[in-house]
């Protein structure tokens, strides 16, 4: 029942008076309206914009948020209104739905934002009114395609390691940009296709005369050379076809695909020519077969996106093309008949039959006008002019449809390419944001320890030690810290860019607590052999999960918890680098946390020895101290801050 009609229910119930006198049995009791409150105005405050409506309006749809008691959760006692911290623009549409019973989709709204709002208010998108439903569905489909694209390319990326040889080959064939071999193959085949097509063309060019005979085409003059070229091309094509056939995931489907048919048709004539003898009867057919060699030019469509789009457009415009053909045929027949009978009277007329007039009609309608057949009678000329005028119209009608289809598909493809290009930038952004947040956590952790140190010492170093983290951040960091303590592992960051900005300085204030931690870290670090230990793999797993999509180059030391011993040898290298470059590099940081992060001090740095986190040092120097110093472990320290040395040890881990 539509919402608006609900207001007419009293009328419908009153109209039942007509049934009462004729009823034979007693009527059931009416439902009592227990809460007989007067209809009241409800104020809905959505992000500051106040909407007011009757309570009964909202109660029309009791299975939505606003119509049920769920809205009581949003009731603000102080202001006696319902406050929703959501988008007021979309809320307008939602409220109109209650008022009119029709849900509209505003075109300027982002589809996912709109979907989110609908989900929040408990309204199914299926009830969008007819007026807006198509638009909504189109946008939704586009969005879904985009997401699917992203998902597919993600899957492609992730599934790379596990491809078999055959799959890598197929992938190389289909996407030449995946590896250099594929690119080479791509260009080589392209080159040979061009060579083959050009030889076919040049073969027929008259090539000067051999003395004593007439002018020969080049093909016959240098027949051996051309034959060799042809053989070479066909061999390359055959090899390519066989390789593709081998690599295809579904051979049957591959054989049936258009491209493979083109391949086969392109190379068949050669083999047939080889097989066939110089029999005079079949050589005519053989010559015809050579025509098929021109199909080699279609092999270019693997190399050209535009060609593929053109082919796809023609396929999708099949109905328009069919209509064009049909209407042209109709018009041709009509005008040919008319012209034939009009010109029948004139002598020596070229319009000998209706089929003969077809040629004239076609030439005229397409405005070619060769002039080999012209009408001579006046009636013929009149109809001829009508024919040419109508030809223009008939041809001009379906052409824009085809053109617009092509344009639409082409732009779609371009959009897909653009999205793929933007994907890289987007992933980089995501990565930076993620590492930024975990970086912030690590900095704040060190800050926390430093703060404790400073408090114990009573040094008012607030401006250096105190990071103004928001409450939410500090709570988040506390949470991560608790997780670390629970599992006995620790997070680490290995993004080279971000890790440059580490803290320096002020290590003179560190107290023994730091040293203790540091020692523990030393020992725990030293517990790890340089070879990959099984215990590390689990840590590895942990770290990979928190900071996904690490690049393979972990050629740097993470900026967290570097024991002093390791750094000792690198100090010299590091100190010079770090202290100078700290400030400038900070300004390049995206995350504001990182800006303040440099204030955080590194608790694990021994005062006199280390000043900063290394980070910028490439792995090889980092590994050497690893191998050098192996003092016996004092005690197996708490596994709290397992340094990312682990990563170094396992080297190019999946971090």
């Amino acid at each position, binding site marked *: 029942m*539509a919402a608006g009609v609900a*207001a*007419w229910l*009293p009328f419908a119930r009153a*109209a039942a008076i007509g049934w009462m*006198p*004729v009823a034979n049995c007693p*009527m059931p009791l*009416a439902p009592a309206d227990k809460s007989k409150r007067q*209809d009241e105005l409800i104020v809905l405050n959505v992000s500051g914009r106040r909407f007011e409506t009757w309570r009964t309006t909202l109660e029309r749809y009791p299975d939505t948020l606003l119509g049920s008691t769920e809205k009581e959760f949003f009731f603000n006692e102080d202001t006696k209104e319902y406050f929703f911290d959501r988008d007021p623009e979309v809320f307008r549409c939602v409220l109109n739905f209650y008022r009119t019973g029709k849900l509209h989709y505003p075109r300027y709204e982002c589809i996912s934002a709109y979907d989110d709002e609908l989900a929040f208010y408990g309204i199914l998108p299926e009830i969008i009114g007819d007026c807006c439903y198509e638009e909504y569905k189109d946008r939704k489909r586009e969005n879904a395609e985009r997401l699917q694209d992203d998902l597919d390319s993600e899957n492609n990326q992730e599934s790379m390691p596990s491809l078999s040889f055959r799959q890598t080959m197929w992938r190389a064939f289909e996407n030449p940009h995946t590896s250099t071999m594929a690119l080479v193959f791509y260009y080589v085949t392209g080159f040979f296709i061009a060579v083959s097509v050009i030889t076919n063309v040049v073969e027929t060019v008259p090539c000067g005369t051999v003395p004593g005979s007439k002018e020969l085409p080049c093909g016959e003059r240098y027949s051996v050379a051309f034959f060799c070229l042809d053989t070479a091309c066909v061999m390359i094509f055959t090899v390519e076809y066989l390789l593709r056939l081998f690599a295809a995931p579904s051979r049957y489907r591959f054989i049936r695909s258009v491209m493979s048919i083109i391949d086969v048709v392109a190379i068949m004539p050669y083999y047939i020519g080889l097989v066939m003898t110089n029999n005079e009867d079949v050589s005519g057919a053989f010559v015809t077969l050579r025509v098929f060699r021109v199909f080699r030019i279609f092999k270019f469509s693997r190399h050209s996106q535009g060609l593929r789009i053109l082919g796809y457009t023609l396929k999708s415009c099949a109905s328009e093309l069919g209509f064009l053909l049909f209407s042209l045929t109709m018009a041709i027949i009509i005008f040919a008949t008319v012209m034939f009978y009009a010109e029948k009277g004139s002598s020596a007329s070229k319009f000998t039959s209706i089929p003969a007039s077809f040629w004239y009609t076609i030439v005229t309608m397409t405005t070619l006008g060769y002039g080999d057949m012209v009408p001579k009678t006046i009636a013929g000329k009149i109809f001829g002019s009508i024919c040419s005028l109508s030809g223009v119209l008939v041809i001009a009608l379906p052409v824009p449809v085809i053109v617009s289809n092509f344009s639409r598909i082409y732009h779609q493809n371009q959009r897909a390419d653009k999205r793929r290009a933007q994907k890289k930038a987007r992933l980089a952004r995501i990565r930076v944001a993620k590492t930024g947040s975990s970086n912030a956590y690590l900095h704040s952790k060190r800050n926390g320890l430093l703060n404790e140190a400073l408090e114990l010492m009573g040094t008012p170093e607030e401006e250096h030690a105190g990071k103004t983290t928001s409450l939410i951040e500090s709570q988040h960091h506390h949470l991560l810290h608790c997780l670390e303590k629970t599992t006995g592992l620790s997070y680490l960051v290995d993004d080279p860019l971000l890790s440059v900005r580490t803290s320096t300085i002020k290590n003179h204030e560190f107290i023994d607590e730091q040293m203790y931690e540091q020692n523990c870290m030393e020992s725990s670090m030293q517990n790890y052999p340089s070879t990959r230990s099984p215990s590390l793999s689990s840590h590895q797993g942990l770290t990979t999960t928190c900071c996904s999509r690490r690049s393979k180059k972990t050629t740097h030391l993470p900026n967290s918890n570097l024991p002093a011993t390791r750094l000792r040898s690198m100090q010299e290298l590091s100190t010079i680098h770090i202290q100078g470059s700290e400030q400038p590099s900070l300004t390049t940081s995206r995350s504001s946390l990182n800006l303040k992060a440099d204030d955080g001090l590194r608790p694990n740095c021994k005062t006199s020895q280390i000043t900063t986190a290394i980070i910028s040092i490439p792995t090889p120097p980092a590994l050497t101290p690893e191998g050098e110093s192996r003092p016996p472990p004092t005690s197996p320290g708490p596994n709290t801050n397992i340094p990312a040395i682990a990563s170094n040890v396992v080297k190019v881990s999946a971090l």
Partner: protein
Amino acid sequence: MRGQGRKESLSDSRDLDGSYDQLTGHPPGPAKKALKQRFLQLLPCCGPQALPSVSESNVEDEFELATVCHRPEGLEQLQEQTKFTRKELQVLYRGFKNECPSGIVNEENFKQIYSQFFPQGDSSTYATFLFNAFDTNHDGSVDFEDFVAGLSVILRGSIDDRLNWAFNLYDLNKDGCITKEEMLDIMKSIYDMMGKYTYPALREEAPREHVESFFQKMDRNKDGVVTIEEFIESCQKDENIMRSMQLFDNVI
């Protein structure tokens, strides 16, 4: 093609692209005339002198549709005329105006609104009878005053008033008495509202039997018609009917 000239083919194209008059949902009448008029303007033979008469009636037609917008009398007057409180009238009017922005209900609208409450059966006949009962001045439309007046009687009137109103509903030709045929029509329309899928299945003769039993009960002097006095008298004697009349006290 109809072969009546190009204006017909133009209106054919309007049918093809489905342009309909938004107000009534029918193919546009005045718009068609406007189209013809515009086409005639194109032809040099039809000079401007031929057009004004066409355009005037066009404009009038368009205005007619647009300006029919009825407003009820003031709230105070309605309060006097009916037994509803101010708030109740407000609520009723808001619902009324929401569904009929033009301020009046015609028979089609009425049927449509009523049918929304009975999705299974066919309530159009009964709705017609209701419409005729509400439309006290028989001008083919029910405005808010009529609407509220009827509701006032049914929901706030005395039992006798209600019975009177029901009699008025049954008396299709308003001649003061109910014949068997009238009653049969009413009965059929009520049964129609149930639809085809009922348990037990609707028998053909059920309405007629029901009418017979009704007349048995109501027709005192067995003259084949039921007059208003007979009707009220019989209803007052029937416990069920009296009790059911009280159902309407709490509807609004």
